[in-house]
């Protein structure tokens, strides 16, 4: 079956997991009807052989917050490997393999292990899209994406800084506002313009829209006793956006370089602001009026 995410056609095949994706919450708007056959841009292949004996360098080990799962991201020469280990187990349940430029992520489950549950499958496809996407000039940005006047604005900040709260204030107080995605929209450059797409991943807010909007601005949020907004210069703008891109990519020189190139292209045309604010209507007015001043 084919998914269309950020206008990239992702073919899923090779096992029951591929069909299971159709039924996962959030993926429906991104499933291409079967009769709309077209050439895939990339592939996620399930039911692959588990490859033993990879040594390689561990790039990044991290827990998957939504479930008791540990993840490992490894590089062995030209191959990247991603492992998911359910809590308490010593053995990984899922292995994903990817060679840069191949356009293919190969997924294997350890024999005897139960098939991937919905949570793990969702996350596995997320990670696969992160790897496949950056090769095609697309990345995912941890942010809340609000749309108004035909443009998207991305609000950045660590979890808990109030991104969702702020975009909810836009929805409540600024007419014409729509939420595109509340956790993880996609960012790409098309004809020199930064474009934002909705994705099947939206954190705790079910907000799944397969739509695209030009990016008007990025706004980094921080909590403060009063509302103040300022435009960031290049270095600060970079430092605001880079941590919001998928962390695993930052630990590999080649992948990090691709993200940085995408960030640079975005910053060429898109202003970045820092909004120190309270969770109030005035803060939303301030960010809206500043971003859409022209």
């Amino acid at each position, binding site marked *: 079956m084919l998914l269309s995410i950020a206008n990239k056609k992702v073919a899923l095949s090779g096992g029951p997991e591929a069909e299971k994706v159709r039924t996962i919450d959030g993926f429906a708007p991104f499933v291409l009807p079967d009769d709309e056959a077209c050439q895939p841009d990339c592939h996620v292949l399930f039911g692959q052989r588990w490859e033993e004996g990879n040594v390689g360098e561990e790039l990044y080990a991290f827990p998957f917050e939504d479930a008791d799962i540990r993840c490992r991201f490894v590089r062995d020469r030209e191959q990247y490997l991603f492992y998911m280990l359910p809590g308490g187990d010593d053995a990984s349940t899922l292995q994903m393999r990817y060679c840069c430029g191949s356009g293919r992520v190969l997924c294997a489950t350890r024999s005897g292990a139960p098939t991937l549950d919905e949570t793990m499958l969702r996350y596995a496809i997320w990670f696969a899209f992160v790897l496949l996407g950056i090769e095609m000039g697309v990345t995912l940005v941890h942010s809340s994406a609000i749309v108004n006047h035909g443009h998207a604005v991305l609000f950045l900040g660590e979890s808990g800084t109030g991104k969702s709260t702020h975009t909810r204030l836009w929805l409540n107080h600024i007419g014409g506002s729509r939420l595109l995605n509340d956790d993880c929209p996609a960012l790409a450059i098309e004809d020199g313009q930064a474009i934002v797409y909705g994705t099947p991943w939206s954190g705790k807010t079910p907000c799944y829209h397969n739509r695209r909007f030009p990016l008007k601005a990025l706004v980094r949020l921080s909590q403060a006793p009063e509302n103040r907004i300022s435009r960031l210069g*290049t*270095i600060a703008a970079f430092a605001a956006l880079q941590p919001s891109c998928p962390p695993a990519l930052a630990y590999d020189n080649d992948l990090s*370089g691709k993200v*940085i190139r995408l*960030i*640079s292209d975005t910053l*060429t045309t898109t202003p970045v602001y820092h909004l120190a604010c309270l969770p109030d209507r005035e803060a939303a007015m301030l960010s809206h009026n500043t971003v859409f001043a022209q």
Partner: protein
Amino acid sequence: MRIDKRHTLRDVVGEKMLLIQGRTDAEKTKVIAFNESSAMLWEAFLDKDFTVEEVKQKLLDTYEVDEATAANDAAQWVKTLQEHKIIL
């Protein structure tokens, strides 16, 4: 001394910078901005063993600057990169 080749000087909208990714929660990610002369020195010494004296000489060769300033700037450039463990 050598520049650790695992680091790559990046160009972001014409600004040169190094991204040093923090590996743990305690270790913050850092961005080091390079001005024109720092970036010139980086390119000049990226693939070789060098001394502070050679860095000073490169500044004297490239810019109209007196010896004391070049010596000071060279020492500062090396010191900053050593502090961030970029120069081994």
